[in-house]
């Protein structure tokens, strides 16, 4: 990964910009129930352990090339992104198959409530982080 970042430094012109954007595993994703009036959180979703480890490796690679003086941190931020589903079963199935997330949500509403709203629309709301770095 550090090798790739050194290559990025090579192909960037002086004062060029590197953008690093990826899901933010430091923040829990949310399972949301979407209604006509808006949305409410009905559960939280962890990032899979292996993906959290990968994210830490990426963070360390960026920190290393900054330490080496190849890049300088300019600006960073976070925004939220929703992946919508037609119903609860779609969301549950998605979690079972998706590699990045833990395979089950941690529900904050009971099973009876979930049964009542299971045919409504749902979404996974997750954080995306980004950082802009200047080539030095």
């Amino acid at each position, binding site marked *: 990964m550090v090798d790739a970042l050194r*290559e990025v430094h090579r192909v960037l012109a002086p004062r060029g910009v590197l953008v690093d954007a*990826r899901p933010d595993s430091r923040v829990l994703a949310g399972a949301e129930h979407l209604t006509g009036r808006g949305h409410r959180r009905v559960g939280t979703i962890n990032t899979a352990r292996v993906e959290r480890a990968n994210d830490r490796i990426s963070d360390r690679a960026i920190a290393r090339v900054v330490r080496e003086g190849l890049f300088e941190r300019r600006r960073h931020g976070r925004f939220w992104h929703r992946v919508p589903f*037609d119903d609860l079963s779609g969301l549950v199935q998605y979690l079972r198959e998706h590699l990045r997330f833990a395979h089950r949500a941690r529900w904050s509403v009971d099973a009876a409530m979930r049964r009542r709203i299971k045919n409504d*629309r749902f979404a996974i709301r997750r954080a995306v982080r980004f950082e802009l770095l200047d080539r030095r």
Partner: protein
Amino acid sequence: MNKVVGHVGRVGWQVPAVSSALRPSAAVELGHWGGPRLVRGKRVLDLGCGDGRLALGMAPYAKSVAGLDPDPPLIASARRRARASGARNVRFQVGAAQTLPYPSGAFDVVILSWTL
């Protein structure tokens, strides 16, 4: 961002988890990074471009966009999408990030979106 971005139905289990359909649109991502001015008139490299979602979203603003990905089927898909969109300033290529097939100083902006 408090609005659902594009309702895509049961996309979560109809397409692979790595699909760009599950990601924010290029316009949304670019908007958060600073807007079109970040790439306007610039030579842009989208590293790990996948099916070209982001590269094609940058094309209307950038001078040129290069997309690189190690997955040949995804690059084929990106090329098809580029042809369909009529973008003439985008080139896609199969390759690895560890040995970039470009000369030194070839780009003004390099994007690693959901890549690292």
